[in-house]
């Protein structure tokens, strides 16, 4: 059974056709990397897969709940990192500890979200995905702003997710270590 299936999907934004006839299926443990120049519709594809954007044609099916990390952090700026993550963890009925640990954020647990740096915010949004327990991860430029140690942690996080039977759709122009991943070239 596939966790995500796109069937001849087309996407139109602002009256412009970004892509059409795009088909993709992700089964357990599989990953796909979306590549292409700026403005070609990588983020739109991610949002389409998340069900946040309606496709102009074709079919989008998800076999499980999805977790999304894009450029919007979705954490309350005033709360401490741990409590901000805990808000989502409570909705997901999971715990925040392992995700924060995996992204190396444990020492920042009590720091307010608004004080975090760009790279730390990126880590926090990946920790939110890691905490979600969702089997399908949708990551939009996950490596942006991460230092080399952060990228290593991200790679390890993704590897663990796939080993657990999770699937992944990522858009990135920075190299990610994704073994035998599908490549989706948008042009």
């Amino acid at each position, binding site marked *: 059974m596939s966790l995500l299936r796109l069937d001849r999907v087309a996407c139109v934004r602002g009256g412009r056709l970004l892509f059409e006839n795009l088909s993709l299926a992700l089964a357990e443990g599989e990953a796909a990397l979306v590549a292409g120049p700026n403005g070609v519709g990588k983020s739109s594809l991610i949002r389409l897969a*998340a069900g946040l954007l309606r496709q102009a044609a074709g079919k989008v099916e998800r076999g499980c709940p999805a977790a999304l990390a894009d450029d919007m*952090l979705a954490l309350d*700026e005033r709360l401490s990192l741990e409590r901000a993550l805990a808000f989502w963890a409570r909705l997901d009925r999971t715990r925040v500890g392992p995700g924060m640990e995996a992204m190396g954020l444990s020492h920042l647990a009590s720091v307010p979200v608004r004080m975090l740096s760009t790279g730390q915010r990126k880590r926090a949004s990946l920790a939110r995905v890691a905490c979600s327990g969702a089997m399908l991860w949708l990551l939009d430029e996950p490596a942006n702003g991460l230092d080399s140690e952060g990228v290593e942690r991200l790679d390890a996080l993704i590897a663990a997710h796939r080993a657990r039977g999770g699937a992944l759709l990522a858009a990135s122009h920075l190299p990610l270590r994704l073994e035998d991943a599908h490549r989706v070239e948008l042009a």
Partner: protein
Amino acid sequence: MRALIWRELRMAAAGGSFLLPLIFFLLVASLFPFAVGPDAPLLARTGGGAMWMAALLAAVLPVDRLVEQDRAQGVLDQLALRDVGEEFVALAKLAGHWLSFGPPLMLAALPASALLGLPREALLRLELGLLAGTPGLAALTLIVAALTAGLRGTGALAGLLMLPVAVPILIFGAGLAADGNEGGALKLLAALSLFLVAVAPFAAGAAIRAARQ
């Protein structure tokens, strides 16, 4: 649902939303006699109307952050991913917004009525009217906040959109406070408020969904 309402209240508290309408309301009540003059019977007659104007404006105060903040930070997207319906989110926001300004205003009406020298029966009618009418004002604010989320410079636009629609609430509310329950003003006010509260989650939910496309 409880987690969402609680989050709304927490954000309202952090944004000063509990205190701000209260101070605003009291400020109007203390400035009004300066504008109208120290004529006690006139103040007692018009004070209820002034209180309603203040309540209306206090309800609009957070219109620019009520929905836009969560949209810009991606919170609405994350909720949608977790299959929390937009109508449900809107309902939580409605409850949170009302709780953050309705009860505080009703409390502030006590010292305000003393400042304006409102008779006791008028104060009772004002409180009753606020109880019935403020949920409607909260609903209107929510609809306008959802419609204008994602646009720039929404403050003025939101006022233009909302204030004319709020006129009926104002008429029945101020009428109830000034002249008593003539012609069933309280029932009409409550009916209007109920209608807005019933419509708001669906209207705001649809607006949130539409803003995403």
